[in-house]
């Protein structure tokens, strides 16, 4: 049965106040900005955000006051540096205080891996001697039952919902992702439910023609949203490139609280949906970000 819904319905139904949400899982590419902006428009509150590094999407959600807690390895602006809203919240409780549980990319991955394995934790030897285990109450150090050496235990994190940006999906949520995928697979398998946001909706036969490329089991998918350019300004391999200038503009304009409010009003609040956002972005800019050269994968035969 089709799980196709509008972004507004998907967020309204599956991202309630107070839920823990994993999104922005592939590091710099495939960031579901359209989903994040809808969360902001619906004025969601007290969310816990989970990701390895989050480019500026987390900064926007924090600045808009949607976030109570961050479980992540890095919150900033990858090509520009610091994230101003994140700083204001962490340093001055503006617009509201947030709890930060600091992970590294590896340990946030292990936390999602543990949940997906049904294991209470994964032991590792990273972060020993660092201050992260003191800053983050979830992390603990215990002697190994095997040889007594110190181990960092990374407890499982089970997101209420994982939002995955995909190149293409069928209406049931069988989706193809390619390019660097970050922790998308772990977060898909760890979560209670998944929202798929796809550049294209394709027939089931297209996806099933290459089952090794499928991102995860579709029984977990609650909603499929067709949202072309839904990841802008981040990149989607084979569809469009990263809009570095956009990140630069965001960085300069959001240094002050007022600047952020103006930016948010302009790009999120006064754009009712992604279509309006894209209209504002404009055709020429989309063209300049589009694919200039196609590089197709070699054929693969599933025949027998």
């Amino acid at each position: 049965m089709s799980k196709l819904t509008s972004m507004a319905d998907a967020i309204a139904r599956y991202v309630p106040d107070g839920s823990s949400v994993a999104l922005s899982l592939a590091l710099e590419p495939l960031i579901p900005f359209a989903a994040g902006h809808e969360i902001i428009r619906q004025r969601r509150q007290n969310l816990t955000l989970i990701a390895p590094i989050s480019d500026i999407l987390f900064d926007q959600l924090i600045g808009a006051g949607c976030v109570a807690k961050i479980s992540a390895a890095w919150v900033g602006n990858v090509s520009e540096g610091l994230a101003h809203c994140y700083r204001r919240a962490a340093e001055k409780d503006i617009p509201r205080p947030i709890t930060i549980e600091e992970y590294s990319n590896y340990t946030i991955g292990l936390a999602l891996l543990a949940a997906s394995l049904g294991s209470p934790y994964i032991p590792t030897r990273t972060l020993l001697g660092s201050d992260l285990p003191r800053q983050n109450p979830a992390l603990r150090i215990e002697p190994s039952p095997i040889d007594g050496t110190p181990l960092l235990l990374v407890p499982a994190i089970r997101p209420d919902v994982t939002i995955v940006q995909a190149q293409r999906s069928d209406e049931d949520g069988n989706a193809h992702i390619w390019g660097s995928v970050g922790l998308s697979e772990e977060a898909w398998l760890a979560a209670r439910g998944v929202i798929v946001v796809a550049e294209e909706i394709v027939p089931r036969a297209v996806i099933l023609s290459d089952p090794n490329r499928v991102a995860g089991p579709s029984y977990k998918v609650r909603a499929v949203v067709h949202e072309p350019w839904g990841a802008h300004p981040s990149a989607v391999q084979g569809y469009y490139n990263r809009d570095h200038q956009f990140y630069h503009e965001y960085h300069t304009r959001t240094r002050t609280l007022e600047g952020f409010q103006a930016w948010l009003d302009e790009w999120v609040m006064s754009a009712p949906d992604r279509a309006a956002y894209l209209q504002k972005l404009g055709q020429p800019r989309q063209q300049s970000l589009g694919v200039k050269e196609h590089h197709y994968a070699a054929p693969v035969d599933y025949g027998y």
Partner: protein
Amino acid sequence: MHYTPRELMVVCAARQIRDGENVFVGMRLPLIAFALAKSTHAPNCVGFFESGLVRDVPSPELLYTMGDAPNIYGSLWTTTTLNVMRPMAAGDVHLGFIGGAEVDRYGNLNTSMIGDWQHQHPKVRLPGSGGGADIASFSQRLAIIMQHERHRLREKVDYITSPGYGYPDAHNPAGESWRKRVGLPRGGPAALITTLAVFTFDKQSGEALLQSYHPGTTIEQVQEQTGWTLRLANDCRETPPPGEEELKVIREYDPQGVWTG
């Protein structure tokens, strides 16, 4: 031949890479250092990127992020973040690069918080570890790249994000033995490359040793900009300047000087 401080840093970083090594490459300068090493003395080194990439040729275009599409194209392996970090955790990465906001004389790195974070709000909230703390924990050798300013090179950082050689306590020294004590499997800082100088580390005491000061600076000037009393390496000398060939490669890769200007 004229060159910028960042170009010299790239050259110094590239010199840390040995042929055939697995290198955990960060963004910006290390990325260009990897490209430089590949095309000069280390044609067989392999680059790991935490977004989920392994590649053995530099990307065809300058990158703003490691996840940029040109970096995926032509990679040896495009996969999950855990998959590229698993070999590092198991000990297969020879050299890792990271940058930071603060470093101390023992090579401990802070990319998380400035100020008294335990009792109040941090003075400055930095982005955090990313993969940095993992690279510092797992790679066989660590190379740190930083702006050289007195407030950044400190006696002691406010917060250890990426463990270097720790600190001495009443009974034990910092250094390799500290890493062993806390349970780190291997590694430790091998080089600190700044806008003014290059430091190596004494693995026994864990202390940074001034290995070389960049052309145009002096040991005194380096000391002025360093928050601890310098210890010099036995063969401390001026940093060998970039060669023409090295600058040529750097400028081909970053013609606008986006990262090296």
